[in-house]
């Protein structure tokens, strides 16, 4: 399997002299203190991707530990009843060990950490899926693990906090700023600057300074590589459209990437519209943001006239981020992918529909992609085949969903 290809698809950026640039986006806007560690990571990654032993070990873990390849599920009832009869194919990243696509990236980065010879890993997490995946890989490889999580998110995703602690990780609630993912990244970067000699930062998405956008993309690229082959085998042709939710953008890049050269396959990213973009309470970075620098890279971000980051809002902790990976910004500007918001209500309606029609409880993050697929079904009609990245499962979201649908009241009591 083409897990970490020698020739990851490289877009013509016009900035080949500057690695980690995607058109005008990406780069490395970080304190000098971190440059040596980023260079080390870049160097080790470059060596690892050409090292058959590293590739074999990663493939072995992805197969025997994670459960890859993940299947494609044909969601016939969802297509019929919820997506205007379009053929909906779900890429089941929710079936991965730990419950989401995040493990794909983390196993690769944990192997890199061991290769570099560091004994401690840190990570940020929003919904907790990346934190759980990192804690899992750290337990597997005997690494010390500290996870930074916004205090607001530790409340929204209490189950995942418990999972991380069961796995032996220390979870640090971050009480600065909006107390969500953005601030967890700030705090993790502060830890890294301080402890960089002993610590590797296992970054969870395709944002951040080079090499993270490239490294994480290459490790997530397997989603699309598998799905492209599976859809061809199942339907005899490529899908008309690929749909994914976009927070930082790792699951979206993961499924998009193998299709970039397939000009007839439309790529659709669905951002978190929160209460609605018009309300200002949302996380639709590409839709409503502007280019700037956040967390070490140039990309679209939600910012005010002074360049101060604007806090994002979403029912989904995993999408509640005012930035986005630089490659998405470039895919947007180049027109190769399209991005639009899905608000909380539409996402939760898609969540409910998938539960009822397919017996699958999706993550609220992934429900944004499902809501997007419903729109695409309406636009493209019943002859269309739409591949949806079901990036995670919704076990962690049962509490939020039960309250949303009035199954439990705010105190957690089940309503008769």
């Amino acid at each position, binding site marked *: 399997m083409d897990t970490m290809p020698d020739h990851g698809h490289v877009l013509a950026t016009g900035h080949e002299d500057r690695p980690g640039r995607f058109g005008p986006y990406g*780069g*490395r*806007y*970080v*304190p*000098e*203190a*971190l*440059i*040596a*560690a980023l260079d080390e990571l870049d160097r080790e990654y470059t060596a690892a991707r050409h090292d058959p032993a590293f590739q074999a070990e990663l493939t072995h873990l992805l197969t025997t530990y994670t459960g890859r390849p993940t299947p494609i599920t044909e969601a016939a009832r969802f297509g019929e009843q919820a997506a205007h009869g379009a053929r909906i194919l779900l890429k089941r990243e929710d079936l991965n060990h730990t419950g989401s696509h995040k493990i794909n990236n983390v196993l690769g980065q944990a192997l890199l950490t061991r290769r570099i010879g560091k004994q401690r890993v840190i990570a940020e997490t929003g919904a907790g899926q990346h934190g759980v995946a990192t804690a899992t890989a750290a337990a597997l490889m005997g690494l010390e693990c500290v996870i930074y999580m916004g205090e607001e998110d530790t409340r929204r995703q209490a189950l995942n906090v418990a999972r991380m602690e069961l796995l032996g990780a220390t979870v640090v609630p971050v009480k*600065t*700023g909006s107390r969500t993912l*953005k601030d967890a990244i*700030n705090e993790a*970067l*502060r830890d890294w*600057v*301080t*402890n*960089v*000699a002993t610590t590797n930062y296992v970054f969870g998405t395709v944002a951040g300074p080079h090499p993270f956008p490239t490294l994480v993309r290459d490790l997530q690229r397997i989603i699309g590589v598998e799905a492209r082959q599976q859809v061809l085998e199942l339907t005899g042709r490529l899908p008309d459209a690929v749909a994914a939710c976009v927070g930082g953008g790792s699951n979206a890049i993961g499924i998009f990437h193998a299709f970039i050269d397939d000009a007839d396959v439309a790529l659709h990213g669905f951002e978190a519209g929160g209460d609605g973009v018009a309300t200002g309470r949302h996380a639709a970075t590409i839709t409503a943001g502007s280019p*700037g*620098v*956040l*967390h*070490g890279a140039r990309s679209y971000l939600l*910012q005010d*006239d*002074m*360049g*101060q*980051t604007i806090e994002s809002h979403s029912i989904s902790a995993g999408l509640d981020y005012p930035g986005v990976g630089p490659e998405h910004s470039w895919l947007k500007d180049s027109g190769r992918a399209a991005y639009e918001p899905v608000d909380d209500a539409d996402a939760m309606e898609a969540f409910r529909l998938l539960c009822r029609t397919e017996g699958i409880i999706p993550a609220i993050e992934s429900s944004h992609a499902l809501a997007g697929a419903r729109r695409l079904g309406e636009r493209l009609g019943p002859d269309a085949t739409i591949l949806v990245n079901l990036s995670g499962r919704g076990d962690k979201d049962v509490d939020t969903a039960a309250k949303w649908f009035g199954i439990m009241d705010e105190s957690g009591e089940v309503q008769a």
Partner: protein
Amino acid sequence: MTTSVAFEKARAEGRAALVGYLPAGYPSVDGSIAALTAMVAAGVDIVEVGLPYSDPLIDGPVIQSAVDAALRAGTTTTDVLRVVEAVAATEAPAVVMSYWNPLDRYGAAAFARDLAAAGGAGVITPDLTPDADDTWLPAAREHGLDTVFLVAPSSTPERIAMTTAACRGFVYATSVMGVTGTREQVGDAAAGLVERTKATTDLPVAVGLGVSTAAQATEIAAYADGVVVGSAFVRRLLDAADPAAGVAAVAELAADLAAGVRER
């Protein structure tokens, strides 16, 4: 006055220069002007005016809380320029300390123009290395501003040489691997880093991060051209019962530290 003149003056007196930081807008815009000018009157040679930013990733809790308050009070980039103008009217040169995005948003060329017009001496860019972006150096050069970049204990010799070649005014050496905030000990790495830095440049080298006491200032002044103090000043403002007491406490610390850089 330029930073070069301030460093030369200190050198002529056989001592290191004292550099003091406070963010603009805390406890208010006028309050920060009062504290910074009091700092100069009490013996600070060069002033760093912090431009408040929402995501200050190499600042510890003390500076974070003052900056958060400044932003909540609505401090703008224009306010920062007003603070610079007021400080520049004193004897001491004023440099801005700013993360990159607020400057990028203002426009590198526009910011350089307006900072120069306000009498500012230059900019320290903690999250912008010289190789990260093409816009800042030409803009700063056009308006005669100092470009102060950071070197760190983890910097390779090649990167130190690249960084000092892009610096003008002085070089900022971070004493330890870490974020801003007072420390019991300034790392052993600092002296070695200053030595490695001086091997590449004739520019003055100032040491910052973690310096809070006169004794630490004396220790660093033995091998560096400048001593930077930030969080300890901010702490005085945060702990003060009222703004006037904050200004007095800042002046008292400045006088202590000024004696420290003169001790040998």
